[in-house]
């Protein structure tokens, strides 16, 4: 084995982005040596609600906020840690994201552009903090809408948890969405659909069907996400940089109301499939409509 390894050129090693914890993900997106964590574990701002329910806290509440630069420009990355409570949004973890975006907005309004990146890895509201989880998600959404007038807000859904619940709306509000094949994006998770609408509506255990429905590849093919990348830290970093280079889009996806109402009108609810939906929902028609609006 040894001789074989030395005889051949070293294989290109791809560094998996998915396998990185939130802190390393944030570090890998920022320019080398610029990572600086805010409200880190030593600040110990924990959930006030979990101990009341016998749940062990984490010192960063499952959310990493890091400042640094991206392509030399000031940046802030909010990375959700899926290993803590499934990346669920509690009062503290959600407030960290909202506050980071609000401070980026403050700087932008003062003419100091800060590039914001959100790494979504979340099932949505943390049910143990129910109404406060929902409240902070509304605040995150408000901040994204206000901020993206100044600078693109870039979202990344790498997987494996994906992005669900109220946070899927936050992702949809982003200027650009970078996804991997393994990153799923949906409002209601497959299990929730099965529970609420019955197994005839969706069999959550049919994994292939679920990936075809809400997986990163399908979301990109139907223009509900912008860039599909491999599970490769370099590729994710390149896609995020390229998104910032594109600047603020002429019309964000959520502003293209007539485009999407028209697409919806052209869909036959009875016969629509993930495959034939691509004829109506795709980047080609999106680009045309963006030109019309511009």
């Amino acid at each position, binding site marked *: 084995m040894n001789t074989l390894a030395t005889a051949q050129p070293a294989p290109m090693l791809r560094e998996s982005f998915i396998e990185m914890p939130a802190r390393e993900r944030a570090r890998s997106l920022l320019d080398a040596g610029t990572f600086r964590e805010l409200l880190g574990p030593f600040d110990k701002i924990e959930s006030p609600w979990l101990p009341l329910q016998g749940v062990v806290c984490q010192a960063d509440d499952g959310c990493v906020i890091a400042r640094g630069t991206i392509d030399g420009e000031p940046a802030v990355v909010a990375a959700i840690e899926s290993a803590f409570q499934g990346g669920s949004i509690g009062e503290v973890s959600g407030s960290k994201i909202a506050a980071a975006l609000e401070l980026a907005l403050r700087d932008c309004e003062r003419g100091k552009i800060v590039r914001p990146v959100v790494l979504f890895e979340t099932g949505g509201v943390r049910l143990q903090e129910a109404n406060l989880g929902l*409240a902070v998600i*509304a605040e995150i*959404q408000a901040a994204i809408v*206000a901020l993206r007038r100044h600078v693109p807000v870039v979202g990344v859904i790498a997987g494996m948890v994906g992005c669900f619940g109220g946070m899927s709306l936050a992702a*949809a509000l982003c200027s650009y969405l970078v996804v991997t094949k393994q990153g799923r994006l949906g409002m*209601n998770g497959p299990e929730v659909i099965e529970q609420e609408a019955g197994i005839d509506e969706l069999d959550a255990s049919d994994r292939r069907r679920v990936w075809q429905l809400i997986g990163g590849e399908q979301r990109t093919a139907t223009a509900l996400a912008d860039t599909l990348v491999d599970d490769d830290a370099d590729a994710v970093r390149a896609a995020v940089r390229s998104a910032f280079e594109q600047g603020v889009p002429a019309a964000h996806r959520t502003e293209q*109301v007539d485009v*999407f109402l028209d697409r*919806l009108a052209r869909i036959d*609810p009875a016969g629509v499939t993930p495959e034939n939906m691509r004829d109506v929902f795709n980047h080609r028609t999106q680009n045309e409509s963006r030109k019309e609006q511009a």
Partner: protein
Amino acid sequence: MSDAQLSRGARWFQALAGDSSTQAPVLSGDAPLGGETAHFFSVVPDPANRFPRATDNVVGLEQGWRLARAVRDAIARDEASGTRRPIVAIVDVKSQAYGYREEMLGIHLACAAAVDAYAAARDAGHPVIALIVGPAMSGAFLAHGYQGNRIVALDAPGTMVHAMGKEAAARVTRRTVEALDALGETIVPMSYSMASFAKLGLLDQLIEGVDADAPDAAQIERVRQVLSEQLRSVRDDGRRNLAHRLESEAAQKNRAASIEVRRRLAEQWDAV
């Protein structure tokens, strides 16, 4: 639809705004409020909706995008004149639509479009007020009401704000509905009661003594009065963001962590 069958969202729309210029599932119309003309919006059942999982008072694909259209039309009508008329979201939405097609066609984006429209209206200087007359649940409330400058609610059976329906939450957290209710007594954000929601500093007024299903003229007038007061409060305040939510005594107490996170993050924001 006979009067007796009207949903709360439809009944209160009729009471406050009269006839709608748009058809179900999204009602919209202008009516006087506090010496101004306000834009009113409501989501109501739509038995004939093309999407069978979205026929009730839920926010589905068409509801989300039509809300966005209606709110953006209101913004556009005021753009030239320079006046920023108030917007009232009448909230009676029991959930987002749960369905295979909904996920496929991007219900998350449809709901986000409604979020965006309301936030854009608020950012443009329209006072946005949410009036909760029924359930204000989860993603449906995010899409319709939760971006408001102010939130008020009727203190009546059936009004509630929550992240997940009680039965589903009980299943997911492996508790009984009774245990969940008991938990809500001690853990404020877990509670389904409007009084507890108020304790989080998120509710600007709980309107007592109003029959949510069959209000009389005096009760409707009282609700209109509350909306006018909130409208004045937004105009006097002048800010267009949601910072107000963290300022009440209730918020100081039960959202102390939200406030602390913001304070300390600001301290650390710029490297020393």
